[in-house]
């Protein structure tokens, strides 16, 4: 009996008209009217929003913090260059006005002849006056006050300049003269900047850790929501790698968009902060240069965050799948 069924089946097949076969071929050549969907869909609900927001916020914070660090670096490079090429010498007054004057002239004369010194200028009385006016009032004769004189010394060979020797020899010239050691001030600034940087790095590590945790969490919940789909894929013969890549593709697309959004939101903030920093540094530093190189880092952030999302998701999915069927 079964044999005649098979016979009939063959007849059926043979009987499929040529015209309809051609029609099927034509149908196969047509583009499908609907887009192919991911086999393992990302959850439409919370998990998806959660990843998007987390990645966007992480990239935003990263961009801001990174620009801060890069900005500080740039400032510091500039200030280092500037500070080292000039320093001040302070000459304390002597009880006698004439003595003080002579002392000052000696110091200036000594400094002017000192190797690598390019220029020595005395801060003028009117400048001093302006500096002191808020404390002493306008109508004090500064000449008569026992106020230290300040000398601004510009040097040539900034890097190799030996402050110690200068200080020793200066004290021979005048007991009242001392160097305002910018290097000391600089090293304090350096320490401060370094601790700022450490703080920034800590913030970055925490932000990255939070983002990674969010992705792990979302991937795990996503997989749990789609347990049934995963077990079907497994039973049909999908490897863990196939399923993981399928998921990673989806999550990466989303993460890239979120990352771009985060970076785009950070850009105006960075510009504004940069402008504010320029206002501050005018007095202290030369200039903050936040250039193309720095912007490139910011532009790279969405790509880096996507790569991190992909890697995290891949590892999480493979691990979770191993715990399943």
């Amino acid at each position, binding site marked *: *009996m*079964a044999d005649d*069924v*098979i016979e*009939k*089946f*063959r007849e*059926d097949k043979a009987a499929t008209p040529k015209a*309809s076969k051609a029609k*099927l*071929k034509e*149908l*196969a*050549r047509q583009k*499908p*009217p*609907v887009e*192919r*969907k991911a*086999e393992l*869909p990302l959850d439409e609900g919370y998990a998806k929003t959660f990843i998007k927001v987390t990645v966007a916020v992480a990239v935003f914070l990263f961009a801001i913090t990174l620009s801060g660090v890069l900005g500080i670096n740039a400032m510091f490079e500039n200030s280092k260059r500037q500070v080292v090429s000039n320093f001040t010498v302070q000459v304390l007054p002597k009880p006698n006005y004439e003595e003080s004057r002579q002392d000052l002239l000696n110091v200036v004369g000594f400094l002017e002849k000192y190797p690598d010194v390019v220029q020595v200028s005395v801060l003028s009385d009117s400048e001093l006056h302006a500096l002191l006016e808020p404390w002493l009032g306008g109508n004090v004769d500064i000449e008569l006050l026992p106020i230290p004189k300040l000398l601004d010394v510009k040097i040539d060979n900034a890097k190799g300049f030996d402050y110690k020797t200068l200080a020793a020899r200066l004290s021979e010239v005048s007991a009242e003269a001392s160097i305002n050691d910018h290097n000391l001030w600089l090293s304090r600034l350096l320490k401060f900047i370094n601790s700022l940087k450490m703080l920034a790095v800590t913030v970055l590590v925490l932000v990255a850790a939070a983002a990674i945790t969010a992705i792990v969490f979302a991937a795990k919940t996503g997989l749990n929501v789609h347990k*049934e*789909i995963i*077990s*079907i*894929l*497994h*039973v*049909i*013969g*999908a*490897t*863990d*790698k*196939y399923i993981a890549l399928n998921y990673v593709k989806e999550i990466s697309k989303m993460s890239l968009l979120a990352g771009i959004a985060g970076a785009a939101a950070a850009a105006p903030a960075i510009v504004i902060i940069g402008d504010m920093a320029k206002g501050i540094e005018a007095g202290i530093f030369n200039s903050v240069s936040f250039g193309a190189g720095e912007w490139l880092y910011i532009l790279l952030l969405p790509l880096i965050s996507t790569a991190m999302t992909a890697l995290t998701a891949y590892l999480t999915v493979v691990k979770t799948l*191993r715990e399943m*069927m």
Partner: protein
Amino acid sequence: MAVREFEPIVEMKNVGLSYGDNPAVLSNIDFAFRRGSLHFLTGKSGAGKTSLLSMLYLAQKPTEGTLKVFGSNVSLTDRDTLAFLRRRIGVVFQDFRLLDHLSVFDNVALPLRLKGMKEKEIRHRVIELLAWVELKDNMYVKSSEISGGEKQRAAIARAVINRPELLLADEPTGNVDSEIAQKLMKLFLELNRLGTTVVIATHSNELMERYPYPRLKLENGALTYVK
């Protein structure tokens, strides 16, 4: 090659299965399915037909004894190898297990995509098969939006699209009218004629009487031949 032909495609020695701490659902099963054979598998509801098939399609490992599929001891086989073995098996699930969010087309195309077949070739094959199971007009409909009988046909199409060496069908004609049931049986017979080993779990006496192939019966956890 000659040796392989005689090598059973599935070999069970003392196989037993239990879920958790519950008493064994299957026990001491000794049986081998020869390459190219076709068997019916019967037994009351709850007898363990689905459980037995699920071991054969490598969704679970036996808790007792040894099971060899395509010559590999499934208890000693690594995950990736199991995945590749599963690609040689077509399964029609009792509850279809289609991916609801995908179209009928994408469901049926899945086994071919897993193999990395070219999309052009996939389209030809899938459309031809869907036309044959009379689902061509619904092929871009989400599979959650078709009727039970249509789902069953989609599930069967997905099971056979890859020309499996082993076809395991769990109540494949339970949701279709007898005309379509006959047509689907014809498909299984044709595949079997081309070399596929087939196991069909069914309650349908009508089907078994009409197609006189050997019957196996599950009862009290044991597998026996029905004379």
